[in-house]
């Protein structure tokens, strides 16, 4: 019953959390620094409207920054979706086993998803403003993330409007699963439905060179470690809060 009893490779949970958080900080910092200071510009083979030659390399204004998004924003976005998988997974496990721990896990996973989804929106909007000159464009990826944000918010609205614990857990699990299935469908349909207003502008660009791949993978690993740490911390906190409540109730008797 002692606190922090789980051990892995001889180290307690806390040590692991500190290690992963520190590593996440180092990796994301490295990715950001590489992105903005060292990674050379990708030259896309699109129509050039304003060409300049800088340092002996021809560069087009509009595409200069476009691949910079790739190293910070994309890892954040991918992490958010990867964490959302755990919402659905734990939802399924709850529906099968009806154990409270899976509901808690699903809820915490959704919480981390919300954090990452909001961060995705923030980094995305900043980039949109800078690259396309507008704060918001109904572009497939942005739209999908907007919908995902609404679904995650809906998940918490649903939870907060139910008092009965078992029912809350069941409904939340069901909605988490539905929302998880819906997210890729949303993305596919926003891409496939022909839109008169905006063609798909967002492309990953042709071929990444090794230093760019390194920056991307550093960012990706850092973000995943960060997500894992936050998930573990929050889960532990929830577990302890529950136990405190049980102990308090025992004291009052």
């Amino acid at each position, binding site marked *: 019953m002692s606190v922090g009893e789980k051990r892995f490779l001889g180290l307690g949970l806390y040590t692991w959390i500190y290690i992963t958080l520190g590593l996440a900080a180092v990796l994301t910092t490295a990715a950001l620094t590489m992105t903005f200071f060292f990674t050379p510009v990708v030259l896309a083979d699109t129509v050039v409207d304003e060409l300049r030659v800088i340092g002996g390399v021809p560069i087009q204004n509009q595409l200069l920054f476009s691949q910079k998004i790739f190293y910070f924003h994309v890892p954040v976005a991918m992490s958010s979706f990867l964490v959302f998988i755990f919402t659905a997974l734990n939802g399924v496990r709850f529906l099968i086993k009806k154990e409270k721990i899976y509901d808690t896990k699903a809820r915490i996973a959704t919480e981390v998803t919300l954090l990452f989804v909001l961060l995705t929106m923030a980094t995305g909007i900043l980039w949109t403003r800078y690259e396309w000159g507008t704060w918001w464009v109904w572009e497939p990826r942005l739209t999908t993330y907007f919908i995902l944000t609404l679904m995650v918010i809906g998940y918490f609205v649903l939870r907060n*409007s139910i008092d009965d614990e078992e029912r809350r857990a069941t*409904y939340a699990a*069901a909605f988490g699963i539905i929302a998880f299935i819906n997210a890729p469908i949303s993305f596919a*349909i926003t891409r496939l439905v022909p839109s008169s207003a905006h063609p798909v502008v967002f492309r990953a660009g042709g071929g990444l060179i090794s230093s760019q791949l390194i920056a991307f993978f550093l960012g990706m690993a850092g973000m995943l470690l960060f997500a894992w740490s936050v998930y573990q911390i929050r889960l532990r906190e929830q577990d302890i809060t529950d136990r405190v409540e049980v102990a308090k109730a025992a004291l009052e008797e």
Partner: protein
Amino acid sequence: MAGTHANPRGLSVRQFKAILKKDIVMELRTKEMITSMGIYALLTMVIYQIALSQAGTAFDPRNIAAGLLWLAFVFTSMLGLNRSLVHEKDQGCLEALLLSPVDRPVIFFAKATGNLIFLLIVQALTIPVFAFLFLQQGTYAGDLWMIPLVLTMGSIGIAGVGTLLATMSVNTKGKDFVLAVLFVPIMYPLLLAAVSATTAAVLGGDGYVQQFWSGMGLMAAFDAIMLLAAFALYEFIVGA
């Protein structure tokens, strides 16, 4: 799924018909759902008139007709779904059904079919009114037979997933608000495809047949996947 009380197939069909008949008979007696949804749709038309009042004569409402129609259907269907399940809950019908040896999937399909029928009736009433009020100028360029197809395909998704979501939302404190919060983002892809297909049907133009069928295909995919998910989850929801 419900292996504990496996029913022979004929019995399931009978039970399905019985639940559906109960909903329809009740509606024929009270006419509450159709009236409330129909009047709600009419009120939406008035709001459209306000929204378009400053658009000028050069503006052709046909360009956004599909969007306006589906907007009206979204709101009326949310109203209808909420009502249909609030009734069920208030009168204790659902609880009675759960006590009886009826398979959960049968309950789901019966409720969803009932909602689908009411939705389609309201849509069939709304469209002529909408055309009369907003589409007098200009000619209809697409194919008329496309309209009922796209309406049915869209309504299947709305009624199917909507029945699941409304079953959840009526048991919460927020009821209609919670339904809206859950319903709109989940329905987003379906509505996007529906508006695309309906626009093709209304406006015609280059490659409209292809646009229509690609929209229909996307809607069919959405309906298939989401109905399957809703069907699988309903058993858990209705028992909780």
